[in-house]
Each structure stands twice: as C-alpha cells, then as structure tokens.
C-alpha cells in the first residue's frame, strides 16, 4: 500500500520526463500523456479506496521515522483532492488532443501538464511543510511555463502579473516556514500540531499564522489579494486555463484548511463576503467568456472561505463539498469556453450568437456546468450552496447567508448573459463564417466536457457518497488526533482537543 501514496507523484513525473523525451513523435507523446493520465487516475482511485476503507494512510520515505524523515500522508481530504485532480488532469489531456495540433506548443504542453499534476499531488500528500513548499514551487514553475506557452503579448503580460504576485507569495510562505521552525523546532505537520500548543509566546504564533494566511491568500486570490487572477487566467491555452482554474487556487485553499492556526474567524467571514461580492460584480462587467469565468473563480473562492470562517464541522463539510464540486464545474466551463472559441471563432460575447441553433449539443453541455455553478437543483452546485448556507444559519450568521444567496442570484445573471448572447441571439453579421474543425477533433473537445457534465449531474442526483466523504474529511480536520497518530505512531500521546484556535497540523 506504500506505493499507492508515492504513485500519484511518481506517475505524472515519469509521464513528464518520458513525454518530453519522446516529444518528436506525435503518436509517442500522446500515448505517454494518455497512459500517464489514466495511470494517475487509477492510482488516485486506489488511494481513495484505501483511505475510505482503512482511514488515514502514511508512508515514511526511506524508512526514516517521522518527524525526521520525509512523510507522505493521505487523509480523506487529500485523497479526495488527488482523485479530483487526476480526473481533471485526464480530461485536460484529452481536451488538449483536440485543441492543440501537434507542434512546438503541444510538445511542451503535455510534459508541463504532467509536471503540474505532480506538483499538485505532491502538495496534497506532503506531510511536512517544507516539502509542501517544494511541491508548491514545482507547481509554480510548471504553471509559469504553461502560462507563457505560445508567447503572445497578452500571455506575457498576464504572466508578469502572475509571476510577480506568486513569487512574493512563495517567499512569504518560505519566511513563514522559517519562523515556524524557529518557534517549534519541527517541520512535520503532525509534530507541529502537538508542538504548536506548547509554544509559550502565542502572540508570535499568531504573527506567523498571519504570514501564512497572507501567503496562501495571495495564491488563492481572496479579497483584497485577487487582482492577478483575472489578469492572467484568460490568456493561456484553454486546456491550461481549465486546469489552472480547476486546481491551482484550490490547492492552496485546501492548504488553508490544514494550516488554519490562530486568527479571528470574524475577519475571515468579512474576507469571504467581500471576495464573493467583488468577484461576482467583476464578472458582471465583463464581456469575454473566459474573463467572466475568471472573475467567477474569485467569487466562488469566497464561498469556500465562508465554510472555513464558520469553523464548525458542518461548515467545513460544506466547504469541502464546494471545493470538489467547484473544481469539476469550473474546469468544465473553461473547456466549454474553449470549445465555443474553436467552433464559433471567438469568445467575445459581442461576436457570438446562434450557437443554440447551430450547436445544440454544445449548448446543452454549457447548460449543465453553468447552472450548477449558479446553484440550481438537481445539479451539484445546489447541494454545495445549500450546505454552506445551512451552516451559516446554524451559526446565526444571517448576513453572510444573505450575501451568499444574493451572489448566487448574480451568478445566474452572468450565466444568463452568456446564454443569451452566445447561444440565443442571432449570430452577428460581421462575425464571419465559423471555422471548420475536423469531426475527430470536435469529439475530442466535447468528450471531456460531456464526461464532466455527467459527473456534475451524478453528484447532484446522488450526493450521499460525496457528502459522506466531505463529512469524514471535515471530522478529521476538526479533530486531528488520528492524523497525528497515523504519522507519528501510537507511541506518542496525541492531543485531542483542538487547542489554540483550531486544527493546526
């Protein structure tokens, strides 16, 4: 079972290296990329099954015992996130087959995509904060390279903003890690959880926690640190946008779940509300498909922060449910926007139209994720929003529940705007004839969209398994003694009470 924990990191890394070596031949590269993505999905599914049956799994690399060696840990949260990442990775690889012809672009795209997946999975599974930082950098380097792939001016411009803020954020994270090590003398997350409660100067600890929050907040684009996201996410290849929007901010967000050390949750509640509102208002003013969707990422992150800010098991449950739902839906919407661009020749709402008549299948496939994002039953977004709003009302936070509902309504506005302009109104005369696309490539574009739409629908109709998964993950986060025990072994007395401020692991 040890190899199961290592596999989600090793498989994409191997796929990246072999894919890069075999970049000369289209057939080889595609085969490697596909096998890598399928292999990753299989490993992730296996890992999730093991964690589901047997609880938290951990492995000490090279048999150096924790807290001294390198530890990989999979609890319900990280196993679920690895599984979703693998799913999105597989969808992206297939989509990229249809989207990008073989050439310098796709030669670099596939290896980098796998490198990114390795970084993402590594960050989820890392058991100590310094390894986390390293996987973070792997992810960052791969994402920077993906962002500028193609080298168009707006990509470079977007990359400047993305690079600037990401590099500050990672340096902050590094300083935070250094300070935390100075305070506690350990880097292992399980050990940290125990040691943090023994630190005498809790004020210093709060300071370090704030450094972490700002670093993670920058990376996950919360209010007021979000400006880089809508400036960069719409510029790269669609496949890249999709995987970014699905995964990157959410990786960081999942880490906030874990590293929530001690700060006022009241503050986070404000951050959540403001993030939701600014994101959705920003989206309302945009006229380009992918820019609208980029702003919606921000507003959706507000919902996830909300679940964290409530800081009840039920709130965390809602937030975890939301993250998983959101990754699938958001990546799918970016796929749809890319398919619209390929099939209709533009992603600018003013130059689109008539897609409902011309491409009814695409219209149907847009409908599912768009209205899931807005929270319509029976789609997955409905349950996600319902859980979060119910959790807010349980904590008597009626204002934020109202904000969440209003933002949901504004999301409907944005989605309706896309629907009206791109799908319903007549195609403008000056738009020119739509580009032609080989049927085979069209199917490669539409297949991942359809598959993810089915997943969304399945979660909506049969939410129980995901609910149970989110419930278990939330319980683990609120009472991390199992996590500590799984990593450090039963020899050490685990502290059960979520001590200072919460679940520092």
């Amino acid at each position: 079972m040890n190899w199961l924990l290592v596999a989600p990191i090793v498989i994409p890394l191997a796929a990246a290296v072999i894919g890069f070596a075999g970049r000369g031949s289209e057939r080889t590269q595609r085969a490697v990329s596909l096998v890598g993505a399928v292999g990753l999905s299989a490993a992730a599914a296996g890992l999730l099954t093991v964690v589901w049956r047997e609880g938290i799994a951990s492995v000490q690399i090279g048999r150096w015992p924790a807290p001294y060696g390198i530890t990989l840990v999979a609890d319900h949260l990280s196993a679920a996130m690895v599984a979703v990442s693998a799913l999105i990775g597989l969808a992206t690889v297939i989509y990229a087959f249809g989207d990008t012809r073989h050439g310098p672009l796709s030669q670099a795209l596939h290896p980098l995509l796998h490198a990114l997946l390795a970084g993402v999975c590594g960050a989820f599974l890392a058991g100590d904060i310094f390894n986390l930082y390293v996987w973070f950098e792997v992810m960052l380097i791969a994402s920077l390279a993906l962002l500028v792939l193609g080298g168009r001016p707006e990509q470079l411009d977007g990359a400047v903003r993305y690079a600037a803020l990401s590099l500050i954020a990672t340096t902050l994270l590094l300083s935070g890690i250094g300070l935390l090590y100075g305070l506690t003398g350990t880097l292992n997350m399980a050990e940290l959880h125990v040691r943090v409660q023994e630190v005498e100067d809790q004020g210093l600890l709060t300071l370090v926690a704030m450094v972490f929050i700002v670093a993670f907040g920058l990376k996950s684009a919360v209010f007021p640190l979000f400006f880089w996201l809508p400036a960069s996410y719409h510029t790269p290849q669609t496949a890249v946008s999709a995987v970014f929007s699905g995964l990157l901010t959410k990786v960081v967000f999942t880490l906030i779940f874990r590293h929530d050390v001690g700060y006022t949750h009241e503050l986070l509640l404000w951050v959540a509300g403001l993030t939701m509102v600014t994101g959705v208002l920003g989206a309302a003013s945009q006229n380009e498909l992918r820019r609208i969707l980029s702003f919606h990422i921000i507003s959706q992150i507000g919902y996830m922060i909300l679940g964290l800010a409530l800081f009840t098991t039920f709130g965390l449950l809602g937030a975890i449910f939301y993250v998983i739902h959101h990754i699938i839906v958001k990546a799918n919407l970016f796929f749809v926007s890319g398919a619209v661009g390929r099939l209709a020749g533009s992603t600018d709402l003013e130059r689109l139209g008539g897609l409902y008549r011309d491409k009814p299948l695409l219209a149907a496939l847009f409908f599912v994720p768009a209205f899931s994002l807005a929270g319509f039953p029976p789609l997955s977004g409905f349950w996600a929003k319902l859980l979060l709003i119910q959790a807010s009302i349980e904590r008597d936070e009626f204002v934020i529940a109202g904000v969440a509902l209003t933002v949901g309504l504004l999301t409907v506005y944005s989605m309706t705007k896309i629907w009206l302009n791109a799908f319903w109104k007549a195609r403008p005369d000056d738009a020119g004839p739509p580009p032609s696309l080989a049927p085979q490539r069209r199917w490669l574009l539409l297949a991942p969209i359809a598959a993810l739409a089915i997943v969304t629908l399945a979660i909506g109709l049969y939410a129980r398994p995901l609910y149970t998964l989110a419930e278990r993950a939330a319980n683990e986060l609120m009472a991390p003694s199992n996590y500590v025990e799984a990593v450090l072994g039963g020899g050490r007395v685990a502290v059960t009470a979520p001590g200072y401020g919460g679940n520092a692991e």
Partner: protein
Amino acid sequence: MEPVIAVLVGVLMAATVYLMLGRSFVRFIFGLALLSHAANLVIFASGGMTRARPPLIAPGESQPLPDVANAVPQALMLTAIVISFSLLTFALVLAFRTYQELETVDTDRMRAAEPSSADAGADAEQRAVD
C-alpha cells in the same frame, strides 16, 4: 548575532518594498532577489545561531560529538536558494521577452491582458486581437 541579522532582514525588506513599488518590472525583479535573501536570513536566524561544530560524525562513531550546529536550517536555505535562483532566472527571461513583445518594462503601460478603452494602450489592444 541574531539582532544584527534581524536588522539586516529589515533593511533588505525595506529595500525590497522600495524597489517593488517602482513601476519598472526590472526593478521589481531586483526587489525579488533581495526578498529571497531576506527570507533565507530569516530561516538562518530562526534556526538559532551558535558557535558549534559542523554536524559531522567522525569515522568509527555512531553519533556526532556534542555541541553540533543545527543542520536543518542550512539544508532548508540551500534548497530555497536553488529554487529562488531558478525562479529569478525565469523572471529575468520573462522580463526580456515581455520587453521584446510589448516594448516596455513599465508595468503601468502593460495593458495587453487587460485592455481598457480609457487607457492609452490602444495599440496593445490592437495586438491582443491578433
């Protein structure tokens, strides 16, 4: 020794902020270089600075002699230096390519990704179309 390092970190941070608030992306990159130095010094200082032996085990022994220095912060710094070096290189190449494409390093005049009609970046908008 720690107070000296702490002041040094403060000075580096101040210089970083000054450089980063400038509009030139090149200045920003220099700021970034200083920032990563500051972060490394933070790790160095927070690991505890002592006059001690190198953490090496003599031949024939199974553990180091007492009073060895803590090797962990040094290992962390080494990793961090390598990573920040590679990212710095990327940022420099990015700045150069951006200068080639947009003919400016002034971040206020980079409007290709977010064109606005009110802005003077009409030519950037033109480029964004194709």
